[in-house]
């Protein structure tokens, strides 16, 4: 696909806003990690630290009426669409004011008003849903495009081929952004994919693909813009592979045995929240004072989000059965299907996963206190036999 060059660079003010959003995401993720270490957040927590350029560059190519669909690594996608950091943090805290009312957690953010159509915990499960949103745009002859993010690992799911084919066959206005961070959990790209040029993976289905530098917000923006423009005008699916890297573990319980410290350091040297402001400063579009101001605003916004999440109430036990069904003529009250009262509460039973959660907290705490302790240096128990350990890190 040519023509990426043809996409104009937005004005300096917009570039500063991108930077502000990247800083917000970074700061948010860091604080979320800290809050996880302090057991304010439960379950799995997947941080997108290192991937901010890919998130902001792609999402800023959208119009407000376009749809965005993401994965379980989706805090940044909610934030970039304008979901208040308060609502995202409250969701992580499991609070009533969370953007999914505390029902979804880290993996299941949603903000329909802003057309952020969800984070999804099933790898590859979001693809057909995004296809369906694009189908609705085609069906109603609306000018909207859907942007669907997926990981490198998700390219090996059956839904990948199914969805590419359907979208190409039906000429749907959709862009797939493969966030290739070189690993699916601990499995390196070349260990999970025979064809590692993921850009090309859609082509056999009729979905043209390009690569962009996912550490470069401008390159990402331009390539995704070009893809979106074609998707919108030619009514066809497009794919962009953003090469990026996550600086933190897959989730909080990841001892990172699958990669070297050197590799992480090499990629950290390309940290988008360092390189992008440096570039803006070099181009005279930002000065040190303005950068410091943006950084402090990001910090403040996240502090406020944490305060808000702390103060937000937990969902009332009475709300346990709300929203299972849309109530109406057929379903006259969730009570009609209710077989049990809400259970008593009390000290929650900890599953085997609790052990890993504890390890995760130790790791996070170690990282948070700046002792860059390699997680593998911590004593890890033998992985339990059975299903739990596979999900432990996911």
């Amino acid at each position, binding site marked *: 696909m040519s023509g990426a060059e043809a996409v104009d660079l937005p004005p300096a003010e917009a570039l500063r806003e991108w930077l502000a959003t990247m800083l917000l995401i970074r700061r948010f993720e860091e604080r979320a990690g800290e809050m996880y270490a302090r057991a304010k957040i439960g379950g799995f927590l997947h941080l997108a630290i290192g991937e901010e350029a890919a998130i902001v560059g792609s999402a800023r190519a959208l119009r407000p009426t376009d*749809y965005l669909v993401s994965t379980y690594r989706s805090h940044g996608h909610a934030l970039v669409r304008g979901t208040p950091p308060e609502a995202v943090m409250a969701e992580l805290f499991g609070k009533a004011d*969370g*953007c*999914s*009312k*505390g*029902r*979804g957690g880290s993996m*299941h953010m*949603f*903000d*329909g*008003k802003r057309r952020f*159509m*969800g984070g*999804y*915990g*099933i790898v590859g*499960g979001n*693809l*057909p*849903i*995004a*296809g*369906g*949103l*694009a*189908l*609705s*745009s085609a*069906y*109603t002859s609306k000018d909207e495009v859907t942007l669907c993010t997926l990981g490198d690992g998700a390219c090996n799911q*059956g*839904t990948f081929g*199914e*969805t590419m*084919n*359907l979208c190409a*066959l*039906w000429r749907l206005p959709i862009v797939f952004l493969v966030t290739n961070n070189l690993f699916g959990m601990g499995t390196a790209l070349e260990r999970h994919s025979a064809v590692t040029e993921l850009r090309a993976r859609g082509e056999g289905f009729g979905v043209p693909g390009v690569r962009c530098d996912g550490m470069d917000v401008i390159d990402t923006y331009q390539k995704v813009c070009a893809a979106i423009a074609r998707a919108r005008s030619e009514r066809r699916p497009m794919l962009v592979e953003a090469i990026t890297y996550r600086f933190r573990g897959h989730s909080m319980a990841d001892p990172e045995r699958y990669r070297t410290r050197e590799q992480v350091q090499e990629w950290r040297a390309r940290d988008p929240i360092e390189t992008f402001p440096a570039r803006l400063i070099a181009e005279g579009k930002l000065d040190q004072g303005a950068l410091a101001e943006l950084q402090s605003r990001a910090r403040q916004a996240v502090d406020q989000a944490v305060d808000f999440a702390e103060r937000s109430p937990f969902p009332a036990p009475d709300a346990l059965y*709300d*929203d*299972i*069904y*849309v109530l*109406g*003529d*057929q*379903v*006259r009250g969730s009570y*009609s*299907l209710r*077989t049990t009262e809400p259970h008593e509460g009390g000290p929650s039973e900890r599953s085997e996963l609790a052990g890993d959660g504890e390890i995760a907290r130790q790791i996070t705490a170690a990282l948070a206190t700046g002792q860059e302790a390699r997680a593998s240096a911590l004593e890890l128990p033998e992985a339990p036999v059975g299903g739990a350990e596979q999900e432990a890190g996911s």
Partner: protein
Amino acid sequence: MAELRYREALREALREEMRRDQRVFLMGEDIGVFGGAFKVTEGLLEEFGEQRVRDTPISENSIVGFGIGAAMAGLRPVVELMTINFALLAFDQIVNHAAHIHYMFGGQTRVPLVIRMPQGAGHQLGPTHSHCFEALFAHVPGLLVAVPSTPADAKGLLKAAIRDENPVVFIEHESLYSERGEVPEDPDALVNFGSAAIRREGSDVTIVGVSRMARTATRAAQALADSEGVSAEVIDPRTLRPLDLETILASVRKTNRCVIVEEGWPHGGVGANLAALIAEQAFDYLDAPIARVSGADLPMPYSKVLEDIAYPHEPQVMRAALGTLGRQPARDGA
């Protein structure tokens, strides 16, 4: 009233709802040009065109997922899965997404999607094409589950399903498509979910029959009256979620005996669940243990002689009903 076959009643429901509401459209394998594997959608492509009657590739999980996305965006998709066996490939989207999205996203979005599929044994299709999986879907909160056994219910429930705001798993039966019955012509006649039908009144024993087994139970009840002097009440729950437990309990309180007939497997089946609910809520009324008649607990075999004895017929139902009365069949063969 018009006399229609079950498949025609379904087609009428689709046609009427598509005429009524532009948002309603169909997706499925071979539903358009081919006319549907069971000919339910025959003629609809000609009337509504390719935009609204969409032949799909063989991609069950994604077809359902596309339906979910389209429903979230405000459309009213009706997805046909060729048979329920292939719904297993779509279990991820049906359970993880269709059923959970409304709850998981705090009520912000809804999934008014209907997923139609037929089930059932009797055509010598062997273990991958013959099972009844209503119990799998009835297990899942967030789904509505319909199991119509008559043309009138097929039409009335399908129309109600399409108009409902929740995801509906709509389970047809392969052996019923050619059955005829009186069907209301009023395009606004709906059958509400959660209302069981009493197919036959009686006083000695309650027989609950699910999906096609509602008909088997009705025939068994006739035979019980004719040859055994037993008055059986037959209840067709029509939907399993929501379940009209009240009607079933009222009947059991009257007859004091209950037989549950289903074509699916016994372990964790619809009957197991219903027996538990009845035991919890009407134990004092029972004069005999609840009896279950179910499909055999095995993969459905191909050979006709084996297949025939692997799912319930009237004699087993009669025997079970008589058993609750402490009796043996008068004649052998029952």
